């Protein structure tokens, strides 16, 4: 009889204890894990969004040129979208002065804008995009006291890599005094790595790209001198 009473008491306490344990599990432990899991999911989603945004930023490319309007205190700004996504321009810098300039430019679209100049001097332009890229004009212009424009050209080699690796070491040389080296990283899966090299002038340049100690690209490009010739060359690897 005593054995039965004690067993009954233990049984009641065990049931109550189990109910309390299950209660704690369902009202405290599981909700805590759910909140943590949800926070982790949101974090991962944001990380993925940012990877896409960064990749889109890397793929933006604008070609910016300025040309003089002869016998006037004004110049024409020409902006061409040479990237593979739509670009939103938000600001324009003419030397040290910035102004809001909102313009949407589709792929391969270009736009021309007349810029009025107040005084003589050297002028260059920088275009700022919504994604935080800065694109400087390929050339700069000089307006002297007699109202005569002169132009200083900038020559460039643009290297774009879509090879399946992460870090690339690029060397551009003219096999003479000029050698430029850069290490770039490919952003995101399926993205590209991009690097612009400003070169001293027209001529033949050799490009070598190394990844993981292996040469994946070797080529030479020639930038020609003269009116109407391209001042920049694209290299795809």
């Amino acid at each position, binding site marked *: 009889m005593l054995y039965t009473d004690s067993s009954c008491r233990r049984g009641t306490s065990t049931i*109550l204890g189990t109910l309390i344990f299950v209660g704690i599990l369902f009202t405290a432990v599981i909700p805590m894990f759910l909140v943590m899991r949800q926070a982790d999911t949101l974090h991962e989603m944001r990380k993925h969004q940012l990877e896409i945004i960064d990749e889109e930023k890397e793929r933006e490319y604008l070609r910016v040129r300025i040309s003089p309007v002869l016998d006037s205190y004004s110049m024409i700004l020409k902006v061409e979208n040479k990237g593979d996504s739509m670009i939103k321009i938000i600001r324009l810098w003419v030397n040290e002065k*910035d102004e809001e300039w909102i313009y949407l430019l589709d792929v391969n679209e270009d736009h021309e804008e007349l810029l009025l100049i107040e005084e003589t001097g050297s002028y260059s332009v920088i275009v700022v995009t919504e994604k935080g890229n800065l694109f400087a004009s390929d050339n700069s212009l000089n307006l002297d006291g007699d109202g005569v424009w002169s132009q200083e050209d900038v020559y460039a080699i643009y290297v774009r890599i879509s090879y399946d690796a992460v870090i690339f070491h690029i060397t551009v040389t003219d096999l003479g005094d000029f050698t430029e080296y850069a290490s770039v990283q490919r952003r995101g899966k399926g993205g590209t790595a991009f690097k612009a090299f400003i070169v001293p002038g027209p001529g033949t340049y050799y490009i070598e790209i190394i990844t993981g100690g292996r040469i994946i690209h070797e080529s030479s490009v020639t930038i020609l001198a003269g009116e109407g010739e391209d001042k920049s060359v694209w290299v795809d690897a």
Partner: protein
Amino acid sequence: MSVTNGSRRAFSSVLSAIIISGVVLAVGGAIWAFSQGAMTIAAEDYAEGVINMTDTISERFIIEHVGYVSDIDDDLHIWVFNYGDVDIEFKIQIGTLTHPAELDDWLGLASKDMKRVKLDGFTPESGFELNIKVNSKRGNNALYRFIVP
């Protein structure tokens, strides 16, 4: 006699069962209440930590321009553009110079906004190469190399 003994035993068994159940309920309830509180705090702390981490990786800013505003003064000006989705707080560092100098003083910059920062009395010599660094409070940074004209 045996009946009396039996009824006493039954009474004490019921009473002891109630007392033990009461103790189990009281201790269990206290543990339940404590667990709920503790786990709510733990979950909130964890979520807050993850949100802070998300804000840290969401920061996107650049030094958009460095130069002089000739019609204002001769001091160096730095333009910082926050193109990310979160507001930032930052300091500018050039060599040993930190602006703002106070440890707890930070410059605020809203998302999608640009700020011009004037470095009072900072007039480096022409030809000097400056390595300008913008440090955010969350630990990100942006760099810019500027050769003084």
